[in-house]
């Protein structure tokens, strides 16, 4: 038996009009953690879909060898049968079923169609122990956080006697702690002889756990780096991904900070379902003209809830507190009023909350400010087309035309459409919630440039982000949130990743 668990040779996959994969070669050694990196649209997901049988044999060219055997999968069940399990970015668990039911879904412990609950529970317990999840097997998946759901997914893969585990952006929606735990688990599984392929945009994770790295660019294999022999720097990986030297991950900016534009005082909001649970507790924040203010904190610390409750009370109940703009108290009790008062909020999850995916770029951009392109409620189409084309050029949205549906755009371009929408509403204050999540290095740089541009126009920007380097690289001033409270405030030039984390951990006010 060869030393390679997987060999994909000369894989070519064409979609109508596009060559998604062009003679890709991809080899994974037994027992390693192999990172697969590349910009959005580089072909990572397509390659994994070819591998797992989502794109069945015959729809692509080239050969796949698993454990030296030539494989021709017709669907996912065939690839899973031989121990090849893929965990998608969007988790595929049934929320209303229990952990145990989910783990053995499609793979039930049964005799003649009758489920043996004893075996199911017992084996679930063993699996949960392996992945380090301490929850009773009967817990409903909907009651678990994303991090724990991810562990259930892995347990499910283990139940299928996985030999090669493929994780597509497993930490994209996890906070720092859960991400670390997940990476630890991957290392543990490696000890038990399970090979993993890790697709990730987070280069720090890759440098930490990967044994080798394959870089894809524009549907072709660029190179495979061996991390065991050489120390691979993040810059080295980026160079391979973008094909050029990206000297700086954050565009330089000159801050020109003016008067206070937005001030939020004593802001308190309660959870919409659980009575008495405060999601925002006596929060005081302010933003000045031309300033980029970061809000850092773990997932669930109340960052999104704070932004959404200020943006037209779109989250929470019993909201109290006052919002001042240019020193005047303003009414933000509905989204419409918030927008009229010059506040915009670009949501965290662009697919669920940001875009109407079945609509085209044009319709999405103008949605929040249709009055601007209408005469007496009748849409002036020429004006709408002119405006949207301007944004397309200004933000360099890559598309065939502005009539292209947003569902077909890459993550970075979707985010640009969301930004265009809010720029078109012409706000004075912009909340950007995780604007660069799940988008590649090149597109991130462009988003940061847009942020700088907006700040230089005198707008106040509030950037919510889980990525500490981003917060440090883009912001002027940083608030740290934890458990619904502001637990720290610091100037970016005085802050470091450590000081922010320390702030969260100790929940103590760090003196400016």
């Amino acid at each position: 038996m060869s030393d390679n668990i997987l060999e994909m040779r000369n894989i070519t996959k064409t979609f109508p009009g596009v060559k998604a994969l062009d003679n890709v070669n991809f080899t994974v050694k037994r027992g390693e953690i192999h990172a697969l990196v590349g910009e959005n649209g580089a072909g990572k997901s397509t390659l994994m879909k070819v591998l797992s049988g989502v794109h069945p044999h015959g729809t692509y060219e080239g050969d796949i060898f698993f454990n030296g055997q030539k494989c021709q999968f017709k669907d996912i069940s065939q690839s899973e049968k031989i121990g090849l399990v893929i965990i998608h970015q969007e988790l595929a668990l049934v929320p209303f079923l229990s952990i145990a039911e989910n783990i053995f879904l499609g793979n039930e412990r049964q005799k003649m169609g009758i489920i043996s609950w004893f075996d199911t529970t017992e084996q679930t317990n063993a699996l949960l122990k392996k992945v380090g999840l301490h929850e009773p097997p009967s817990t409903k998946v909907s009651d678990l956080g994303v991090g724990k759901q991810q562990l259930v997914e892995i347990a499910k893969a283990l139940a299928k006697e996985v030999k090669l585990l493929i994780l597509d952006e497993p930490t994209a929606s996890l906070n720092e702690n859960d991400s670390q735990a997940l990476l630890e688990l991957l290392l543990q599984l490696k000890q038990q002889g399970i090979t993993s392929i890790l697709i990730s945009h987070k280069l720090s994770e890759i440098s930490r756990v990967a044994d080798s790295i394959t870089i894809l660019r524009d549907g072709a294999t660029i190179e495979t780096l061996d991390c065991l022999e050489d120390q691979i720097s993040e810059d080295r990986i980026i160079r391979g991904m973008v094909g050029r030297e990206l000297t700086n991950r954050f565009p330089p900016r000159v801050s020109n900070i003016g008067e206070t534009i937005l001030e939020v005082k004593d802001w308190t909001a309660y959870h919409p379902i659980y009575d008495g649970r405060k999601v925002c507790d006596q929060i005081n924040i302010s933003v000045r003209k031309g300033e980029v203010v970061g809000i850092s904190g773990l997932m669930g610390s109340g960052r999104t809830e704070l932004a959404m409750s200020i943006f037209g009370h779109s989250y929470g109940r019993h909201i109290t507190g006052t919002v001042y703009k240019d020193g005047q108290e303003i009414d933000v009790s509905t989204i419409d009023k918030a927008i009229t008062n010059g506040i915009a909020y670009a949501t965290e999850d662009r697919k669920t909350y940001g875009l109407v995916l079945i609509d085209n770029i044009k319709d999405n951009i103008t949605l929040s400010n249709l009055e601007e392109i209408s005469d007496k409620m009748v849409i002036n189409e020429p004006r709408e087309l002119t405006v949207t084309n301007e944004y397309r050029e200004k933000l360099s949205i890559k598309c065939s035309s502005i009539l292209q549906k947003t569902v077909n755009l890459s993550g970075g371009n979707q985010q640009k459409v969301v930004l265009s929408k809010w720029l078109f509403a012409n706000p004075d204050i912009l909340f950007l919630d995780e604007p660069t999540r799940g988008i590649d290095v090149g597109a991130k740089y462009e988003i940061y440039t847009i942020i700088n541009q907006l700040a230089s126009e005198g707008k106040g920007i509030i950037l919510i982000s889980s990525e500490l380097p981003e917060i440090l690289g883009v912001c002027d001033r940083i608030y740290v949130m934890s458990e619904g409270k502001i637990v720290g405030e610091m100037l970016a030039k005085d802050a470091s990743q450590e000081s922010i984390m320390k702030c969260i951990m100790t929940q103590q006010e760090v003196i400016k």
Partner: protein
Amino acid sequence: MKTLANLFKNNIREYGMLIALIAIMIFFQVATKGTLLKPVNITNLILQNSYIVIMALGMLLVIVAGHIDLSVGSIVGFIGAVAAVLMVRYNLNFALTILISLLIGALIGAWQGFWISNIKIPSFIATLASMLIFRGLTLALLAGESVGPFPVAFQKLSSGFIPDFFGETSIHITTLVIGAILSVVLVFIDIRARKNQENYHFDVLPLPFFIAKNVAISGAIMGLCYLMASYKGLPNVLVLLFILIAIYTFVTSQTVIGRRIYAMGGNEKAASLSGVNTKRLLFNTFVNMGVLSALAGMVFAARLNVATPKAGNSFELDVIAAVFIGGASASGGIGTVIGAVIGAFIMGVMNNGMSILGVGIDWQQAIKGGVLLLAVFFDVYNKRKG
């Protein structure tokens, strides 16, 4: 410049349904040995389907908004009963009756909107409840009997024809004039839209096809008007339909409200976070549906010249089927007014044609069901391929 095949592929849903309608018409025209397109029959066909088309307009908005309304058939019955009681038992003036009936329709719509939009009861359940409630109320109101006949003026709503301003000739000249005006207006609108698209360098139909398309549409309108003119002219209700179709096409494609309904149906949360008052919009969508159901109820009652407890039974199914055959998506956000109208006429032509051929009501139902399934299959298949 894209190829014609490509253009066709992109618009396959719109053209596909139109071609299906024409094919079905040709089939029945041949099978019924020319009866289908006889002036008297085509007039009947339009009268028979007018109320379905009226409701399909409202249902399209409801379905695009991501909801459904199962109660429209019962509302047709209920409003018919209300109008009958007002006019026959209380001798109320017909104009006042129409006004009151429309108002009650709006109130019923508001009732639905309240439960669906404010209380957040799924529309399927809320309107299922209304379907039972208003069917029951219809029975109660009519005390299980038929009430009629109506004043002549009210009957004209459905059975009247527009007068001929050019005197009594063998052919109804006003009808032809209206047809000509309508054709010119449509051609003018299409030319303007094309110029607009060219200005922005979008793909447009190659000129010969553009001309052919407009000639075909104008020809169809003039042909229809000629058939009508050689019978009694344009029925009042067809004029009403033209006006309603024009208004709803305009609202859905050119106005802020229309755009917002599509956005709400496509992604309610995203629309709401973009400042669209989705609650109010959804409420109003149901009020609109209520008013149109009331209008359809009166047209139907006027046509039969009597209000019966069973009036409007299972109309909701024909209406919903028409909208889906017309290409609307069950998950919301997709669908066109013209599509829904074509869908309604596909159902109507099949009803009419099969009746002429003497196909029993049993097989009519089964065949219509098959057509609905086929149309939606066509949709799903296209989406998967694309």
